[in-house]
Structures are given as structure tokens and as C-alpha cells.
């Protein structure tokens, strides 16, 4: 790519309150260039009022996710080459969350649901006790470890049609977190987790459409985690205990 080449970028602007529209920009192409760089270039050089969000730049904080050509992606680690079609890219804010302005969404609903799914540790011992020995190869531990590296980027949440259609649905990330905690031998209140994911919008609302797993940038598998919760709640129903 020579530096004089440009790419045509369409960006969704505004918010529900102020009205939304698409705006087109020409951005110079570079050899090493991510979608985040493209968005930054527009803000730094053409339109200083363009709003977007990022922090770590390396796929660890999960704050730069946007819809790129209709697909939810972490923009800091999406090379332009991967998404460029006819020298064009189409960028919009993450789906399924309220837009604050331009490309920045309000992530509170996502995290409220994380909490509602009991996606947190329920301690059984305190800081004075020694750290329990846990076999890293134990089956339950392996299951817990499978989902532990979620960066709460909300990409799965944006990909899921059930989230789009059902405002109560807790969504893949929160449920996967619940499943991870459920499989943690250290957790003291696994019953509370099953209760939380059995209510309105819980794991039973998932239709296993697997968009979460298909698009998770970290290769995690919320689909299977949610299936695990369904299995656990069913087993409890038939008297299998929590």
C-alpha cells in the first residue's frame, strides 16, 4: 500500500437523542493500520468531535469494540486488511447497547447483567486463611479455566440476536461468567448462581445460536458455558443437587 492510497470509511454519528446518520471520510492507508487507527485518524485530523473509546490498544481492556462491516470486533486488534472490501469500511457503534454518542455505547446494562447473573466469587474463607490447594487438572477447574479470560468486551453481547430481541436476557458473557464461578471449587454459594440464571432472561432464554462463540475475539465459548448452566439447572431439578 502506498501512502497516497486512501480508504473510504463510513461512520455512524450521533445518538438516539440527537439523531443518527452515516458520514463518509477519506483516510490515508498505511501498512500497519488497525480499525482503531482509522477511527483515531479521523478524530485527530478531520473531525475533532468524533467520539469513540479505547484504552489498552492491545486487546486486554475490551473497550474498543465496534461494528465493523456489520460484525462486532475489537478494533485495536483488527488489521484494516482483514476487513477492507473495495477500499471501504463501514463502522458503527456496538449493537445491543444504548449509544451515548457516535461510536461510544453505554456499557452499564452489560455490567448490570453481569452482576445480576451472580457473576462474582462468593467467598467461603477470608484473607487469614491459606490459599487452598486446587488441582489445575481437575475436570471442574478445566471447565472454569475455559471461560476465565473474558475481557468483557461485549462483542458476544452485540452478536447475539436473543439479546437484541429480549431486553431481559442476561447475555452470553454474564452467563459464561456465572458458569465459570459455578465450577470454581472455592465458591461458597453455587445455589445462588443457579437461582440467578434460572430467572427471567436467564440461561434458558438462550437458543444456542452460537454467534457469541463465533465472534468472541478471544476464542471463548459462551455457547457451551450456557449449555452447562442449562444442564446444571436441569440436574438440580431432578434432584442432582447444586
Amino acid at each position: 500500500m502506498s501512502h497516497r492510497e486512501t480508504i473510504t470509511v463510513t461512520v455512524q454519528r450521533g445518538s438516539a437523542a440527537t439523531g443518527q446518520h452515516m458520514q463518509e471520510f477519506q483516510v490515508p492507508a498505511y501498512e500497519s493500520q488497525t480499525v482503531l487507527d482509522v477511527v483515531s485518524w479521523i478524530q485527530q485530523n478531520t473531525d475533532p468531535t468524533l467520539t469513540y473509546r479505547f484504552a489498552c490498544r492491545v486487546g486486554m481492556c475490551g473497550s474498543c469494540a465496534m461494528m465493523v462491516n456489520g460484525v462486532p470486533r475489537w478494533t485495536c486488534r483488527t488489521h484494516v486488511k482483514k476487513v477492507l472490501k473495495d477500499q471501504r469500511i463501514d463502522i458503527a457503534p456496538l449493537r445491543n447497547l444504548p449509544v451515548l454518542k457516535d461510536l461510544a455505547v453505554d456499557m452499564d446494562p452489560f455490567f448490570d447483567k453481569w452482576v445480576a447473573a451472580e457473576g462474582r466469587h462468593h467467598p467461603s474463607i477470608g484473607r487469614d486463611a491459606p490459599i487452598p490447594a486446587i488441582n489445575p487438572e481437575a475436570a471442574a477447574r478445566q471447565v472454569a479455566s475455559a471461560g476465565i479470560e473474558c475481557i468483557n468486551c461485549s462483542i458476544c453481547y452485540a452478536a447475539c440476536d436473543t439479546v437484541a430481541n429480549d431486553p431481559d436476557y442476561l447475555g452470553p458473557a454474564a452467563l459464561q461468567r456465572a458458569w465459570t464461578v459455578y465450577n470454581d471449587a472455592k465458591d461458597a454459594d453455587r445455589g445462588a448462581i443457579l437461582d440467578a440464571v434460572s430467572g427471567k432472561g436467564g440461561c434458558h432464554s438462550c437458543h444456542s445460536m452460537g454467534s457469541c462463540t463465533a465472534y468472541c475475539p478471544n476464542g471463548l465459548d459462551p455457547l457451551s458455558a450456557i449449555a452447562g448452566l442449562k444442564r446444571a439447572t436441569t440436574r438440580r431439578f431432578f434432584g442432582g443437587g447444586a
Partner: protein
Amino acid sequence: MFTLKDIDRHDTDILILGTGGAGLFAALHALQTAPEGTKVTIAVKGLIGKCGCTRMVQGGYNVALGNGDTVERHFMDTIQGGKWLPNQDMAWRLCEQAVVRIRELENEIGCFFDRNPDGSLHQKAFAGQTADRTVHKGDLTGIEIINRLMEQVLARPVEKLQEHRAIGLIPTRDGSALAGVLMIDMRTGRFRFVRAKTVLMATGGGPTMYKYHTPSGDKTMDGLAMALRVGLPLRDMEMVQFHPTGLLAGDHTRMTGTVLEEGLRGAGGQLINHAGQRFMFDYDGKGERATRDVVSRGIYAEMRKNNNPEQEGVFLSMAHLGPEWVAKKFKGMVERCADCGFDLAGGKVEVVPTAHYFMGGVVVDVDTRTAMEGLYVAGEDAGGAHGSNRLGGNGVANSTVFGGIAGDVMGADIRSMGALRDPDLGVLEAELARACHPLGVKPGHVLPLRQRLQNVMWDEVGVMRTEAGLKRGLGGIAEVSDALMQTGVSPDMLAFNLTWHDWLNLRSLCDISEVITRAALERDNSRGAHYREDFPDPGAMEDSYFTVARAKGDSVEMHREAVQFTRVRPGETVLPTGEPETLVAAQ
């Protein structure tokens, strides 16, 4: 353009700025120790837990957990790593409390760190450590720590002010105590003054005024700039730690400067110069496995020899270890490079030293108290614990240990504090005017100025320093600073206006860059991260001093203070006699 009347008012009891390891731990501990009904508020420049550097921690968390390792040994490593400059009581507190904090992280917060086959915690050794001490979760330790802390905090009754940027510490009329903090609600662009009985500043420093830097984009020295303006003393401000291997991908991409992990060199990765030759053994017997400062200087020296703008850095090459093995062992790093278009496993990747961590900070006591009543500082914003160099793994230990302490202390102190304090309206007005300054000036581009500052700092106040260079640096910083004051931001749309915040970021960076440079001029020897080509000698350890900077009117005043060897003197050790020098098997 804005007056005091335009400021929204808000009150709370305990206010915490920042949600890194320090901020989140402080919130949890404050809720535990403060009297029932105490209101705890978190204000943060980004989203809770999703900004800052604690989340970016890769290697891990230093803590002595037996197997021969002791708090004493951890302490000695910290003092020696810091070249005898650390505040010894803080360093001791750090090492001692890390033991409690790691248990808290596992048992109460729900972190899960990597285990040995027998179920005990796995620990490894970073360069500069004499024991396998670093607890970790793969090479994504920070994600585990911050996610678990974040979900605990989100589930508790804490008031959240997200995307609220602190811009000024507002003292009382007599200046003895802190009344509150002026912020911008970034989403609306409105100003908000939050009064609180106690405030923890945990905004995490962040040396992002260098051309190559690793920290999160939201970190721009805001905290230290605010502390400077309110007259607090800052120590060790010349101490900027460079990580030797930052990715170099051009100045048009935010990937540039991001870290390629230490373990790559540990595993046998080679550094190759422009002539295609390995060079690190010319500088140190440990070659690529030498400590960060040594490798950074080696690379910097090679870059200077080459002096070719087309190929600035050196190359990190892993291919000789077998691309498949590399791709498996360093999956995360290889994928990250691949996403950016580089082949780490089979090819070579261009790297440069990159500004990573800031050892300097506000002078605090072991309880995180500052000279100003009601203001506490913890984490990377606080100076003292690391002295002239931070050991890998001591950063997150520091922020979580002292964050927790700050929460405990604020929760206790608040019991004896009466009413909220009234602010000095003059200062409030001045801070408001400061933030509004660009809105009244003809709009221009902020980015080129930031790049200019980053070049000045990299060239003149970087890995190797000289008096002449530092003085040129001061001139360069002043030019950027003046140019910034002539560069405006259109006031038409202040809601979520990133360009306004870019301006404010650069304002903080200019202010602290000047302090770094002055402190570097003040230290006429070479210690830890600070290297003076004109004074390569470390100086006598017995006579160790640290630098202290303080704002006086419009200028910055420097002085030196002697290090108090409260626990151990140079040449001595707190380890029992007969203890082996190192417990780490030779690599």
C-alpha cells in the same frame, strides 16, 4: 466562558479517583472499615475496571510465600533493585502486606492464579529477583485481577461516576486540607465539583509523554499534575522505567510502543541490530537476559549508532527456536503480532525501548497519607516504594497493597472528620479557567504537538541523558507548552469531545515532563532507570539522596533529601547470616 455557576455540585464521604488495582481495592476496603452509611464514590476517566494499567499486567504479582522465600528476601530485592533509594518503610510494608493481599485476592475476591500440579500457587522469577516469587495467571494476570475486583465492586453499593475526569484538587481557603475535586463529566461536557471528606488519588501516573510508551491511553499524568499544582512535593521524578521491547510499527498506529513480553527474551529470543548481528553480549554478560534498564540502554545505543530514520529500532528474533514451538509457548504474543501484521514466530519484529512505568510520585507516608489533610495517594501515583527502579511484579503488588491500605485508613480517618470542607473558590475558578482555556482559542491540531513533546522527551530525556540534552529538553517542552496554549478546541460540542481531552492530556504531560527533566538535571549520578552519560557513576550508596520537586509560583523547585536507612544500611542485609544469595536456579 464558564463561571462557577455552571459547575454542578455533588457531595460524598469517600471519593476515589481511578479504578486500577489501587482504586478498586480502596473502594472495597473503605466499605469494610468505614462506619455504616458512609457514601463511597468512584470517579474514573474511563469505564470502571476497563481502563488503566493494572488490567494490562502480564507477568504477575510479587509475593514471598515460603519455599525458602521470605518477606525479608523480597524486601532486600526491592531495595537493591531500587538501588537503595526506596523509602524502606514503604518497601517493607509492600512486601509484608503483599502476602495478605494475595490471599485476599484468591480467597475473597475470587482470583485464580496458576497452580503447580500439587495444587499450590505457581511462582516464577523475573529478572532481578533471588527467588521464584511472581504469582501469575498465564501472561494475562492483570485481566484476572481487575475483572475479579471490578465485579466485586460493581456488586456493592458504590456510587459510580464513570467517564468523569478529575482536573483539579481544590483545597480549603487556608490550603491545609482538601475540600474536593473538580471534574469534567466527559459524556456531557459539564463540570462537576465533588466534595468529600477523604479523597484517594489513584490515577496511575503513566509516562505517556514518550514517543514509545506502553501504558493505557487514558493515563496522562493527570494526578501528578494536579498534585503539583496544589503544592504537594513529588519525589523521584527522574525515574522513568523503560521496557526494552516495545513494538515498532510506525507513528500512525496506536500499536507502536506496546509491550512484547519479557519472557520472549528469557526463552532465548535474540536481539539483532541493523547490521544483522546480535549485540547484547557487547553490553552485558547475561546478553538478552540482562535486566530491563541494561537491555534498554543496549538497544538505545545500537539505535543511535545506526541513526537511520527508515529503520529506527532493532529486531527481536524468535525463529531459531522453532516457529511452531514459539507459536505454542507464546500464543498470545504471536497472535497479537499477527493481528498487527507481524510474524513473531517465524520472522523478526522491530522493537524499541518503550516508556513503561513511573517510579516517581507524590510523597506519602506508609499509610498513604499526604501532606494535605483529606488527600491520600496510592499506586503508581505515589512515590517511594520502588526508588530508582521497580522490579517486574512489584507494580501491581504496590497498587493493590497500598490501595487496600488507603481504603482502610480513609474508612478509619473519616470517623474523626466532621463536616465536608468548603473549597477555596479562587482555586476552583482558576482550575475551571485552566480547563476552559482552549475553548477560547482558535482551534488547531493537538496531535502534532503531542508528537513533538514525545520526540523531545524520547530524544533528550529518554533512556540516556546528558546535561546539554536535558537543557535542550526543557526548551523543547516549553515550546510545545506555549504552542499548546495557542491551540484551541472548538467549544461547539463539548459532550464526549475527545479532542478537548487530548488537549487536557497534553497539558498534564507538558507539566510533568518539565518536572521529570528538572529532576533528571538535579540527579548528577546514574541510578537504576536514570542514566546520565555525563555522570555514569552511581555515587556512594551511603550518601543516597532522592530528589523532591515542588511548584513555587509558576516554576518548579528542586531539592534533594537524604535517604533514611530505617531498616537496613547499604552493604548490610536483613537476611539471616548464611542465607544463600539467590534461590533461583542459574538460567
